[in-house]
Each structure stands twice: as C-alpha cells, then as structure tokens.
C-alpha cells in the first residue's frame, strides 16, 4: 500500500463566513500597477473555455501573454463540443434558485468531496459569466418575449441552465475566441497554434516555462515566463473510447506531476449516462447525446430480461422506466453517476436493447405527442440530426439508444483556493484541476467552472502571486532549461528507436479495455489489484514493441500519439492506485464492496473525507499520498438521496 504523509495539505481557503470569503480575498490580494503589467510574461497552455478566457482577460489587463494550442486554431478546443448548457444562479424562473442553492446542489452533487469555499465562489461568480457572455454576443436561447430561457439539468430541482440549442460550448467558445482574437490583434497575446506542451520548466522550485514541440516542423523549444497557467482539459482518453476529442490528452498535467505538482483524486472520473453505444471494434470514439435530452426523453428498458422485440412492439405495461420508478423525485434527471450505474445494472441484467444489447432507450414519443415534433426539433434538432447521421435511425420515430461512456474527469492537478498548484507559479484551471466538482460533476457545470476560472478567478489571483514574489532571472542557458529539453528529446528518441511491430492505437485500445473493465463504472479491490499488475506489463510491452515510423524533426502524428499514450499508461496505474486506496463509494467512484442494500454508493465519511493528492517519487516507486481534509460547515454531511 502507498505511504502517506502525516502533514496535512492546506487548501488555503480564507477564514470567515462563506458569503464574504471571495469579496474579502479580492480586496486583500495585492495588485500589479497597470504600467508594470506588460513586464510580466504569462504562458497559458490550452485555448478552450478556461484557457481562451484566461488569456483574453489577462491580455486585456495588460499582461504579456503567450497562448498555446495543439489544434490549428484556438476555436477547435474541445470545449467546442459541449452541448447542453451552462448553469448560473440567476433565478430568472422564480423557482427558488439562489447562489446558496447552486452552491448546495454542487457540493451535494459532488458527494461531499469538494472544497466548500471553492464551490461557493463558483456559484457566486456564475451570474457574472452570463452577463459577460451576453455582452460578447453569445446567442443564448430566448423565450418568445426575448428573455433568456432556461432548462433543467441533472441533480437540480430548479431550471438554471442557459443554453444555445445543443451547441452551447461552441457558442461560448466563439465568444471567448473573439475576446482572445481582439487581444491577439492588440498584441497583448501571442498565439501559438499546432504547438504542444511536452514538459514544465521548474527553476528553484518555481514554474518558469514550458518545453514545446512544433507539430509541423518537430522543433523542440523552451519558452520562458514568470507564470505558467495550464488549461489543458481532462484525461478521459485514458479509456481510449470516450466522448473526448481524439487529441485530448494528459501530457501537460502528467509531466507537471512528474516535475512535482500533486495529482488530486485521479480516480474521480465521470461516466456520462447518455452516449451512443459502441457499434464494433472499429470504433475510434464515442459520441455524447446531451443530458438536456433527459428534460423531454424518458429512459426505459424491457421489463423482461432477454426481450428482443423492437421498441414499438413492447406494450406500455412491459416497459421498465427504471429511473422514474427508483428515483421518483428526480426521475429522468437523476445525477449522472446514479443514472449511469442504473443503466449498467439494466444491461448487466440482460435488459439491454439494440443489435449488441448494449444500450437503454431514451424515448421522446410522449413529449412529441404532448408538445409536437416542432417544439422538440427546436430544442434538440441538431442532436437528433447527429444521432441520425451516426446510427441511421430517426429518433423522432424510434427511441434513441444510449449507454454510459467516459466523458469528464473531476480529478486533476491539486490547486489551492487561489488555483495555484503546490509548485509556486504553476496555476491550473478548468477541467485540468480538481477543485470544484468533488466525486461527481453536475451537468452544465463544466462550462461554468472553465469560464469562472478563466474570466474571473485567475485574473484576480494570479496578479497577487506576481506582486508578492521576487523572481530570479532565468535564461535559455540555465541548466534546468537545458535538462528539461534534453529529457524531452530523450523520450522522443526512445519512442522512435523501439521499432517494434504494433501501432500505438493497439496499445491505447488495450489499455482502455483494462481501465474500463477494472476502473470504470464499478470497481473492486480485486479488480484494481489485477489492473495494477496488468498495466505495467502492457506498458513494458509498449516500450519494447511499439512501432513509430518517421522522424522527430518532421510532422509525425504517430510520434505525437505515442508520447500521449506513454503518459496514459502511467496515469492509468495511478488512477487504479487511488481507487484502491479509497475504501468507500462516492459519486462516480463506485466500489462494489461499499454499497447500501439498494445498491447506492456508501460513503465512509469518518475515514475518507479528504482529497487524495499524490506526489511522484520516481518511475518505479510508489507515489506518496498527501491528504487535504475537507470540512463541511454549511452543507452538512448527509447521505445523498434523489429518491
């Protein structure tokens, strides 16, 4: 078992009543004089909602910003694919919403494994995000009278989700991208596309730059700065099949972990309940169908196991609306972790539907009858089209088939209240950090967190670090810089020199199978121990038998993939170690040994009310576990019930 340190990690949440923490902190933090700001150089890695918002906001403040993206344009970042919406506590519906309720729902939704002060701040700035985006021209859906519309998402009994049809992420990203483009034109931000971060440069214990690879020329370079901000997203692609874009990877945060940053709650992964089920071995990724569909779609399976009649031949009495029956007060809008496990139980009990019997129905017949097809098409038209394109089925006529798939990772690099990791000068925002969602994220809260961090939190906390820190001069000749570059060149040469027989995809797919089997929707100590044996074996085989053709100093997509998969192997093992260490079930982390009689997650608050933050100790050494104790002063620890 891993060793852990007795010294508790301090999240640095300010004292005082929760409603005043952020306002007071903002006043107490030091500022940088406007004329001094351009002397500070800030690197932002990633250009999704968090990265683009941060780079644009810091640029507008007058800092000298460099922003890096692996795509050919910032507007391709995977935030673009977010569908359903963004939460805010505006209470436009007059249905009892408030900052406090959004805070409460998020802490409870995260199954009491998030830091209260961070979550409160998130709820507090949520309303400003909507104002900011409307000012940018983001075309949120509006009602007939012109007011902003809302819909409801899982884990909430109010309608607080703002949306732009099923393309909310795209519209928000275009807003952030416009703001970023304005700063690029004003020369406060320099944009580097097709440029991938491969390592973090740490000098005298502080983050002082990154090593990048130009993906067109293969050139490896050091880029120095006063502060580094990682906004590089999550690591669901450790499962190979996920709803993430093919390029999403863990390399930036993983290699920062190997430079000393703590990795928090790696086993907290979200398996989204509504994705299109896989169709076969050729499958390269899975496609999400927005949670918003559960506003109007009803989830069911045949009541009798083994029933393989088509949906329209199964009479009403023989349909099992399992979410509505089991969780009557939330029904089809039960939170994601609960809905996903419920779907798995049905498919495991041979009630699955579709050619591979690996899905459940999401049925719109009742809503179409009640509201008419036009209303449904207005709300979700693009999602129905997408479903038709991928499956060849018309969901206006037959129910959609859906099944859970890896979608989001709550875990990430550990950060304090100021969003700074334990490496001074390294800030981590959005999905890349661990901070706000605990063990389960509620729907429409990822966009909220990315933009909260990027537009409002980081632009307030980052100057405080610069104003209160005296930085040494670092040059490209510094030994730390040269060593970091040499390390990256060495990894590249090693991958190219294996010259084995199997392509990178083969190993990634095999790793994904292990992770899905043993560290997916449900986990056991026995399975996790097995995975901890199997992953290093497969990793060794990868390093002895992978075939990466071509050269390093050229466009080489296999080399890019190989480096990312090498990191996924190491991360996958840490996820299993973390899952094995956490002898309880909470949120998306479901250990079969710890469940109630009804099969619900059974937390162990006495022993596990902490953040597990892992410290890298070497490639073949067990990492050290640091614990940040969590206290719940406002939302009292209680069994989470949606019944």
């Amino acid at each position: 078992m891993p060793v852990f340190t007795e010294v508790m990690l301090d999240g640095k949440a300010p004292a005082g009543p929760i409603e005043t923490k952020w306002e007071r902190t903002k006043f107490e933090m030091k500022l940088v004089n406007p004329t001094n700001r351009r002397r500070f150089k800030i690197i932002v890695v990633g250009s999704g909602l968090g990265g683009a918002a941060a780079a644009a906001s810091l640029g507008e403040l007058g800092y000298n910003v460099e922003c890096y993206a692996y795509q050919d344009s910032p507007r391709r970042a995977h935030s673009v694919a977010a569908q359903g919406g963004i939460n805010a506590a505006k209470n436009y519906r007059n249905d009892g919403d408030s900052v406090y309720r959004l805070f409460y729902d998020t802490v409870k939704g995260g199954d009491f494994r998030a830091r209260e002060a961070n979550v409160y701040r998130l709820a507090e700035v949520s309303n400003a995000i909507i104002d900011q985006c409307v000012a940018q021209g983001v075309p949120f859906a509006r009602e007939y009278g012109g007011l902003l519309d809302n819909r409801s998402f899982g884990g909430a009994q109010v309608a607080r989700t703002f949306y732009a049809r099923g393309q909310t992420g795209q519209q928000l990203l275009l807003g952030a991208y416009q703001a970023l483009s304005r700063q690029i034109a004003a020369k406060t931000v320099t944009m580097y596309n097709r440029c991938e971060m491969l390592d973090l440069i740490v000098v005298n214990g502080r983050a002082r730059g990154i090593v990048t690879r130009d993906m067109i020329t293969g050139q490896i370079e050091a880029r120095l700065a006063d502060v580094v901000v990682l906004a590089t997203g999550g690591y669901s692609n450790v499962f190979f099949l996920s709803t993430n874009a093919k390029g999403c990877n863990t390399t930036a945060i993983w290699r920062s972990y190997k430079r000393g940053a703590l990795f928090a709650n790696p086993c907290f992964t979200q398996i989204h309940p509504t994705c299109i089920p896989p169709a076969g071995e050729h499958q390269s990724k899975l496609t999400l169908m927005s949670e918003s569909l559960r506003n109007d779609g009803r989830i069911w399976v045949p009541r009798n196991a083994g029933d393989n009649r088509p949906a329209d031949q199964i009479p009403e009495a023989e349909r099992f609306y399992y979410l509505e029956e089991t969780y009557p007060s939330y029904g089809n809008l039960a939170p994601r972790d609960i809905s996903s496990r419920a779907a798995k139980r049905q498919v495991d009990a041979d009630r699955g539907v579709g050619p591979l019997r690996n899905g459940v129905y999401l049925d719109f017949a009742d809503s179409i009858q009640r509201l008419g097809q036009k209303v449904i098409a207005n709300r979700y038209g693009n999602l129905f089209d997408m479903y038709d394109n991928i499956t060849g089925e018309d969901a206006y006529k037959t129910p959609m088939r859906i099944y859970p798939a890896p979608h989001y990772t709550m875990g990430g690099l550990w950060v304090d209240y100021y969003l700074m990791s334990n490496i001074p000068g390294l800030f981590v925002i959005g999905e890349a950090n661990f901070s706000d969602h605990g063990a389960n994220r509620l729907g429409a809260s990822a966009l909220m967190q990315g933009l909260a961090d990027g537009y409002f939190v980081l632009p307030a906390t980052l100057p405080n670090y610069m104003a209160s820190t005296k930085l040494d001069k670092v040059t490209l000749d510094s030994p730390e810089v040269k060593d970091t570059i040499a390390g990256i060149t060495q990894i590249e040469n090693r991958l190219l020199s294996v010259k084995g027989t199997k392509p990178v995809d083969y190993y990634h797919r095999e790793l994904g199978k292990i992770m899905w089997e043993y560290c997916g929707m449900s986990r056991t100590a026995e399975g996790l121990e097995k995975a901890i044996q199997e992953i290093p074996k497969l990793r060794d085989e990868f390093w002895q038998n992978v075939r990466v053709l071509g050269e390093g100093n050229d466009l080489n997509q296999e080399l890019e993939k190989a480096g990312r998969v090498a990191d996924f192997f190491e991360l996958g093992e840490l996820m299993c170690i973390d899952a094995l260490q956490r002898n309880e079930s909470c949120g998306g982390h479901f250990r079969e040994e710890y469940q109630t009689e009804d099969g619900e997650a059974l937390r162990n608050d006495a022993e596990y009310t902490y953040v597990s933050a892992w410290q890298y100790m070497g490639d073949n050494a067990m990492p050290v576990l640091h614990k940040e104790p969590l206290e719940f002063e406002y939302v009292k620890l209680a069994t989470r019930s949606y019944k």
Partner: protein
Amino acid sequence: MHIKLRIWRQDSTQAPGKLVDYDLDDVSEDSSFLEMLDLLNNGLIEKGEEPVAFDSDCREGICGMCGLVIDGVAHGPEACHDDLPTPYAGL
C-alpha cells in the same frame, strides 16, 4: 465492405506528390470515413509504410479540424462521423 482509395501522398510541402492506390477489405459499414483511414494507417504501419497524415479531433462534427478533400469536395462533418455508406455509397 471493400474500399478502393486513391490518396494524394507527399513527403513534405517541397517534395513532389502523387496519387497512391490502396485497397481495403473488411471495412465495417458502421465506420466513419476517418475510422476507415485509421484502419488503413494501422495496416500501413504494420507493413512498415508511413501512415497517411490527416487532421481530425472531435470526430462528432463540431470542431472543424478535419479537412479532407474527397472526390474534389472539401468534407467536414460528414467524413468526420457519418457511417460510410451514407455519403460514399458505391465507392
């Protein structure tokens, strides 16, 4: 199903390029065009030949990263996630 491909290959922007023929067997009808290219590439790698470089990211028709020109037409979302037979029946 069986697919015949003619793909423009070029070592670099300076090098001369040419169309190269490839034959693919046992392609699932549920594959997207990009998944069919994955299959081609993994086969090429196993044979020791350089895989075909192509852009893709979200593979669900929203990011705009894939930029294939197929039969003279620049394809976006269709190549990205549609089942093969839909736009390419008869190829």
